[in-house]
């Protein structure tokens, strides 16, 4: 293995010598082309987002060639008959032109939109992988923060892009954006007038969003993605625990040629899926929506999926409003808008950003981690993650409560009432259930380690008893399971005089100590040294629940 790593294949040596003669960078190339990437499918999820972003840049550039971000009203005279003679903004008219008159325009528009949905979806699943395996731990906290920033910016990028075609559906989103901005206490009206250049909707918002959408935000996204990649490259990947995998190595395939081929293939897969969806599945049919006028609104007005959780929180919020100093000036505080717009977003995004630091504060774990956790082995983290997913997922689901009501014949009112309860009960239930499932899985691992795996061979003993022959687990599986480490815990025990250690005093310290005790430690220890050699277990009866009695 090590000998193989030290020999440089011809494919690398040739070009790098050529380049070295001219640029003097062969050592850099030799080192980096042999960079090792771990070989687990979940490590490719982030690449969905990366490649979707590349496709977004390419298709987006194509769209800018024809799109006209202007709110000047024109009469439509294009080929789409049901809108003939209708007044609309130039932005909408040019989006229709891209859809019906530009060759390949509709395909590009649809690819852009599908790629946007997959961009955020890819980021989400990648982030969940990093979270549940604890890959955000030291030294990767900064890269985690960059990731959270990328996700937040992607939402803003999506929102501005969704508003650009100036169709009736995008206008509904814009109206909600305005509603949120104007609901802010004291500064709301000023911010709204600043953003829209006067009264809603005005004639400025589309050109402004256009600048943000094609220049500022993609520029920042590109810079942050580069930083994300460079940091990942320098810090190297985490890897799942397993045979000969340690904190000081990475086991996998080298960048060149193996990983490069895989990454290239995966880009083509992403392109294929996006182009395939754009070919067969219609997305954002703006011609059906019609041009935006503030007076019109349609049933089934929804945001794209990544904004759905905000839509849901808005829909289940009771109509609360405070009028502190009368309704004039800054007196009105529309809780029915501020809370759903800011609280769930704040919980999700702030929670994500702070989690690595909160976890460190609770566990006191300042070590570097390059071997990822299996989700079951840190049950509290996994449970917190699952209740976060449940919270987000419920809000997301409730954002579509009208479609649920209409298609499943449930009263719309009841979806709202049930949602208001579930949003509190659901995450708590998810926490409890996940915690028990994690412990159960740990127990099952412990059973595999100490008893081995069922072989399917049933033996009958001379005195009539049936037993099943168990075999020890394969080496790599056992190494994978034995990769488990206890979650670190603060020294919380009081000394002989009953005084808790430093940092664990006072109300905050006591809370920290209690959380550390609950969060840390080893819940289900693995047997040491057992599990080798052939084990035989009772197949039926006699052993009861505690089948150890028979064999150990």
């Amino acid at each position: 293995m090590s000998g193989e790593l030290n020999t440089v294949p011809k494919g690398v040596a040739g070009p790098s010598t050529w380049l070295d003669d001219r640029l003097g960078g062969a050592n850099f190339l030799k080192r980096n082309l042999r960079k090792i990437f771990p070989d687990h499918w979940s490590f490719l999820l982030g690449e969905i987002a990366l490649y979707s972003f590349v496709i977004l840049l390419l298709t987006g550039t194509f769209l800018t060639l024809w799109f006209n971000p202007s709110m000047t009203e024109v009469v439509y005279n294009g080929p789409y008959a049901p809108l003939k003679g209708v007044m609309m903004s130039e932005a909408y008219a040019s989006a229709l032109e891209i859809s019906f008159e530009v060759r390949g325009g509709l395909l590009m528009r649809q690819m852009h939109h599908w790629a946007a949905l997959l961009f955020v979806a890819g980021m989400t699943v990648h982030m969940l992988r990093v979270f549940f395996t604890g890959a955000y731990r030291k030294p990767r906290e900064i890269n985690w923060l960059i990731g959270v920033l990328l996700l937040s910016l992607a939402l803003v990028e999506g929102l501005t892009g969704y508003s650009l075609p100036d169709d009736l559906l995008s206008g509904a989103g814009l109206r909600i954006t305005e509603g949120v901005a104007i609901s802010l206490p004291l500064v709301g009206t000023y911010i709204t007038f600043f953003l829209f250049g006067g009264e809603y909707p005005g004639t400025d918002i589309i050109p402004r969003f256009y600048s943000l959408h094609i220049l500022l935000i993609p520029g920042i996204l590109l810079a942050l993605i580069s930083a994300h990649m460079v940091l990942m490259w320098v810090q190297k990947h985490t890897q799942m625990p397993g045979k000969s995998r340690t904190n000081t190595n990475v086991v996998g395939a080298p960048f060149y040629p193996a990983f490069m081929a895989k990454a290239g293939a995966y880009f083509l897969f992403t392109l294929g899926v996006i182009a395939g969806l754009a070919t067969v599945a219609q997305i954002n049919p703006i011609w059906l929506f019609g041009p935006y006028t503030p007076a019109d609104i349609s049933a089934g007005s929804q945001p794209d999926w990544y904004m759905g959780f905000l839509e849901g929180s808005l829909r289940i919020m009771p109509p609360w409003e405070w009028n502190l100093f009368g309704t004039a000036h800054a007196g009105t505080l529309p809780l029915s808008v501020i809370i759903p717009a800011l609280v769930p977003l704040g919980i999700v995004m702030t929670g994500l950003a702070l989690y690595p630091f909160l976890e460190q504060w609770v566990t006191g774990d300042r070590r570097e981690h390059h071997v990822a956790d299996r989700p079951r082995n840190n049950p509290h983290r996994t449970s917190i993650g699952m209740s976060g997913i449940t919270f987000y997922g419920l809000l997301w689901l409730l954002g579509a409560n009208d479609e649920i009501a209409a298609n499943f014949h449930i009263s719309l009112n009841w979806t709202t009432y049930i949602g208001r309860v579930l949003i509190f009960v659901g995450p708590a239930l998810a926490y409890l259930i996940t915690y028990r499932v994690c412990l159960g899985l740990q127990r099952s691992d412990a059973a595999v380690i100490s008893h081995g795996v069922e072989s399917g061979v049933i033996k009958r003993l001379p005195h009539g008893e049936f037993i099943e022959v168990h075999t020890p687990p394969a080496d790599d599986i056992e190494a994978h399971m034995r990769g488990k480490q206890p979650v670190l815990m603060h020294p919380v025990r009081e000394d002989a005089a009953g005084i808790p250690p430093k940092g664990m005093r006072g109300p905050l310290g006591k809370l920290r100590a209690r959380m550390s005790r609950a969060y840390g430690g080893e819940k289900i220890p693995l047997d040491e040294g057992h599990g080798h050699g052939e084990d035989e277990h009772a197949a039926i009866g006699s052993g009861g629940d505690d089948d150890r009695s028979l064999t150990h």
Partner: protein
Amino acid sequence: MIRITAWRRHPLARYAVLILALALVGMVYAAFVQAGKPADAAMAAGKVDDVAEGKSLFVAHCASCHGLNAEGTNTAPSIVGVGAAAVDFQMSTGRMPAANPGPQAPRKPLARWVDENAIRQVSAYVQSLGGGPQVPGAEQVDPKLGDAGRGGELFRANCIQCHNWAGSGGALTQGKYAPNLNASSPTQIYEAMVTGPQAMPVFNDTTITPQEKRDMIAYIVQVREQKDPGGFGLGRIGPVTEGIVAWVVGMVALVLAAIWITAKKRQKS
């Protein structure tokens, strides 16, 4: 002339004029009412049998809820004065006779006894009870004669907040819903506008003129007959189905691809 002037100034003259005017108004009113009385019109047109037949059908199939004289009961409203258009809409879409009471009667296959004749007869009977909107003529609902562009603007201003931009329908409160318009014939769409069935408001001819109604029908029919240029329409309900497809088709395909790509491990040499 003197004599006429004298009559004009006669103390009884004002009463005479008043009585004359009242008689005139009364006669004009009676004439209009006569014209508006379709029962008599039906009789004049020899359709009196329709009314009689319709009454017997009504008594057999509708009266248990709507009352023997269509006066309404606790379970169903009076339908005196709803007009033939309302009966034609409700019966031709299968909503009436209703299968069971609920928030809203759904569109369903027609009952076995309901056919064109039966609908015409019951309509004639109900029309004879108290008038109301008539079934529109073929030309009144012909989508080819309407201006779809103008109809689209009216459609977006008046209909889509419940029926959705493509007429795909949507939810209302307490289990009620705005149905999908794609199954409705132009006549049914027109009748729904003038009679306001179930949760729908009435759009009478002063709110939306018959010409405008035809424009809207033209838009609805053009849009629903249009082949989706971008591929499968995904139910034409917007981002909800798009999001489901992005995750269930797009993400699942990409995750499977990732699993496939990484499944082949490098062989140890």
